[in-house]
């Protein structure tokens, strides 16, 4: 589904990703862990098409199609979703109106008609319930004055609405208390299917107690230096990243 081949990317001529290889198949959950500055968020941004990063080598493929020439919105239309570590506040635009715009833009790009209003409302209601989001919340301005937890929950709500093929969750657990973490993780789990995939980027293991990964990758200095199953996350939690450095003689 998502294939990343020998991906190199830099910003201001400084290389941050130094040859990433990753294959994500439908139905899978991958976790990418690593210390600060390893390139985790850069990887997420590059896959989503942020133009301040320059891809110098390698490619990102979705269903075999190279995404290199696609703007962020085109990637979104094809099924890439990025949950932001720091979601942006948009005063004056309600959550509901924002989702209407986003969904209908995607539909337009796919040559579909706008979603009928009643269908949209039904979907919004359904997905809001999934994430235990209060109805009032939907008529508030997007992310404006939201708590950290509300912002992250709203990100997953957007993911639920947009139904992406590949969802990348960038540090979705940061700033969440344990209850919010549970709700967010339960939401993600309910959205999982055999046809989509989730890439969880996290610093800590605790989110992975709730979203069990099939694969765990350790990103260090722009490269994936170790891959394993869920037990690798536990080992990292216990031993820290220094252990990897020593083992890999980095």
């Amino acid at each position, binding site marked *: 589904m998502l294939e990343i081949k020998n991906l190199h990317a830099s910003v201001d001529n400084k290389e941050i990703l130094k040859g990433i290889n990753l294959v994500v198949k439908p139905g899978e959950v991958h976790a990418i862990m690593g210390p600060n500055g390893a390139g985790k968020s850069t990887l997420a941004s590059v896959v989503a098409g942020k133009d301040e990063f320059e891809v110098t080598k390698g490619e990102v493929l979705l269903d075999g199609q190279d995404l290199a020439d696609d703007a962020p919105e085109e990637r*979104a239309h094809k099924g890439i979703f990025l949950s932001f570590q720091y979601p942006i506040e948009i005063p004056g635009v309600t959550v509901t109106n924002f989702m209407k715009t986003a969904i209908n833009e995607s539909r337009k790009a796919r040559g579909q008609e706008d979603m009928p209003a009643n269908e949209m409302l039904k979907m919004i209601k359904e997905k809001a319930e999934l994430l235990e989001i209060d109805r009032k919340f939907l008529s508030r301005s997007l992310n404006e004055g939201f708590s950290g937890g509300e912002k992250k929950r709203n990100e997953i709500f957007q993911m639920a609405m947009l139904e992406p093929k590949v969802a990348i969750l960038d540090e979705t657990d940061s700033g969440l208390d344990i209850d919010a973490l549970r709700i967010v993780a339960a939401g993600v789990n309910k959205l999982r299917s055999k046809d989509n995939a989730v890439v969880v980027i996290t610093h800590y293991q605790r989110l992975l107690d709730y979203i069990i990964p099939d694969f765990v990758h350790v990103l260090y200095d722009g490269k994936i230096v170790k891959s394993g199953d869920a037990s690798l996350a536990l080992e990292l939690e216990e031993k820290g990243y220094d252990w990897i450095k020593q083992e890999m003689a980095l």
Partner: protein
Amino acid sequence: MELKDKLVNAFMAFENQVDLDHPVHDVRSAAMKVFENQGFPTKKMEAWKYTSLKSLEKLDFSIFPKEAATLEYKDVKKYFLHEVDTYKIVFVDGVYSSFLSETTHQGIDVCLMSAALTKDMYKPIIEAYFNKVASKEENLTALNTAFSKEGAYIHIPKNTQAMKPIEIIHFATGREQALLLQPRNLVVVEENAEVQILERHQSLSENAVFTNAVTEIFAAKSAIIDFYKVQNDNNSASLVDNTYIDQHSQSVVTLHTFSFGGKMTRNNLNFYQNGERIDSTMKGVTIIGDGQHVDHHTLVHHIQPNCESHQDYKGIYDGNSTGVFNGKIMVDRLAQKTNAFQQNNNLLISDKSSINTKPQLEIFADDVKCSHGCTIGQLDHEALFYLQSRGIGKKEAQALLMYAFANNVLESVRIPELKKRVNALIAEKLGVNLGFEL
């Protein structure tokens, strides 16, 4: 002939049309002398450093309105706030249009300046308020005073609330190649009275129009006034809008200026706080593009203690448009416990657009809170990426961000239909369908 000379000559002709024995005529004559001495403001004057009238002075303006042209309501309906019931004072090429207007004398006076300046029953009000708060020295205000004859006259007596908003609309039909209009408005709101007023200048052709307007507003003790200026004129129309507001204790005056159209727009907005616990609020949204210039000059003069002023101006400049914001706050020695707030935020969308912004604070009291801030920036790339990553195209994403940037200024608009209208105008100005009902 230069426009100034033409105006000086025209004044003599003007004197044939008005009652020379009326006390107001002495005011006019004195004002004409001021203009004759000073002429039009030039870029050498600090207050006019960034705004030039030179190209306007070259045009051959018709100075006196001819007979009223007729306009069909259906053709101009869209310029009215037709969703709600309003009083209307409408002028076509400077001449009152009784057909399009809806004035009243029931409980309040919503009528014509020409009547107020000539009929005896209005004499006490005219003597007390006409040309009192307006500047006697400012060039263009003096010019307007010299030719003051027509405009809107609004008088709300003590303890009275105007039941409907009042619309003042000045249409220019384009029958003249170039038309100079000088409307003069007087708004007197007595103690504990309340009114909402909307004003717009609308040219209906591509012919040049230059409007030099003066509005005097008097807010007595505990009066509440909401004034909305909708500036969305054709690109061949220029406007100098001089507004003078004399506020007394506990009065609340809120003035919104929405500047989306016009070739050159200069707003001179002056608040004088002659009492305690006064609240003065000025808000503005400016969205302009190629060939347009908008200049906001504001003044708040804090004269008495315990008063507040709030200014929040947002500007979005595209193409080769230019903007000016000059916000002057004066706090007299007596005006302790003043709370003055000023904010001016600007987005430059194109490499060719520019803005000159300048806060100007003169504070002579020592126990005051005065804050000011101005920003000039571009759209936030991270925010743009966020919206794009949700599938929203770049152009729409930019529009959404600009909309969000300007939107909060509308929170204080108290006529819901107007708010909706301005919201729609902002969306239209930004050139995209936002995909939802505003």
